[in-house]
């Protein structure tokens, strides 16, 4: 029994130790908003920002300590009277374009923005060409058949 428990604890320790890039355990005291408008703006803004630690969560959803710190900073910047664009620039300067779910169209993001469209366009073009060729072949075959019938 105690051997099993020890093994479990050891496994837990190893699993925790394996986290190569760790997060501090801190107080996650909730932010307090002055009014509903501030809260709505805060939620709209943080939903558009990506957590840098858990990259498939938004800043609004993430429970990582760093996300907590960044939310606190976003609220502080809002209270200092900074606009949404200003706050986004503040975070981009420090953490890179990655924090934005909708990065600016740029030389190194154009493929991200237009890549899917280009693929769709290429596929559409291929389909169109195949259909046209088949149609021409079918027409040719039909006329051949006609000749042979006669």
């Amino acid at each position: 029994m105690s051997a099993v428990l020890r093994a479990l604890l050891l496994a837990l320790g190893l699993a925790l130790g394996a986290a190569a890039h760790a997060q501090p355990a801190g107080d996650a005291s909730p932010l307090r908003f002055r009014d509903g408008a501030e809260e709505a703006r805060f939620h709209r803004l943080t939903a558009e920002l990506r957590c840098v630690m858990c990259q498939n969560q938004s800043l609004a959803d993430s429970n990582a300590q760093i996300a907590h710190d960044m939310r606190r900073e976003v609220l502080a910047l809002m209270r200092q009277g900074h606009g949404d664009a200003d706050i986004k620039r503040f975070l981009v300067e420090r953490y890179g374009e990655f924090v934005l779910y909708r990065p600016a169209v740029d030389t190194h993001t154009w493929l991200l923005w237009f890549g899917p469209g280009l693929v769709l366009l290429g596929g559409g073009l291929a389909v169109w060409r195949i259909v046209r060729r088949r149609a021409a072949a079918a027409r040719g075959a039909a006329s051949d058949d006609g000749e042979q019938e006669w």
Partner: protein
Amino acid sequence: MTAPQDTPQNAPRPPGLPPVAIVIGALFFLGLVGLMLYGVLRSGDADRDVLPSALIGKPAPQFALPVLHDPSVRFGSADLRGAPYVLNVWGSWCAACRDEHPVLTAFAQTKRVRVVGYNWKDEPADALRWLERFGNPFFVVVADQEGRHALDWGVAGAPETFLVDGAGIVRWKHTGPLTEQVVRGQLLPALEQAERAR
């Protein structure tokens, strides 16, 4: 003249795709296989989620933080100007920091460059005890207990290690524990370059 065979022109096309389509398909398939192979090879890489630092080539953030060993004294970027320094973000709560500690200590003991400790979101008492237990390789340790200034460095977790040159420009960053390979293969070359540029 009256050959029984069909001439190539009006021979019915053999069923199947034109060669061009087959070549394009094959290239597409090979590309896909390559992409998957790349994904599989990278999946073993501990750094696969690491983001490039937005600060490389830019001035390091200005800071003046309390010294861990004497909070009445503040130490910061102004005191470090003039020569390169390495900034190591760590916390006593961070298991990976303990893993990298021997590597960092060995590197710091070469006295090649000043290694500044950045104690991030930590209890000062815990941090001091940690240093006493595992050894203090740092030139100086500054404490950012609230973690507010770490945002300026783009810190997402610990450990993270920065190299700042004598002009105060961030030259290099490593996310995750330092290893001997990283020190030898990346940090030392970056340091040499920073020193030469000076």
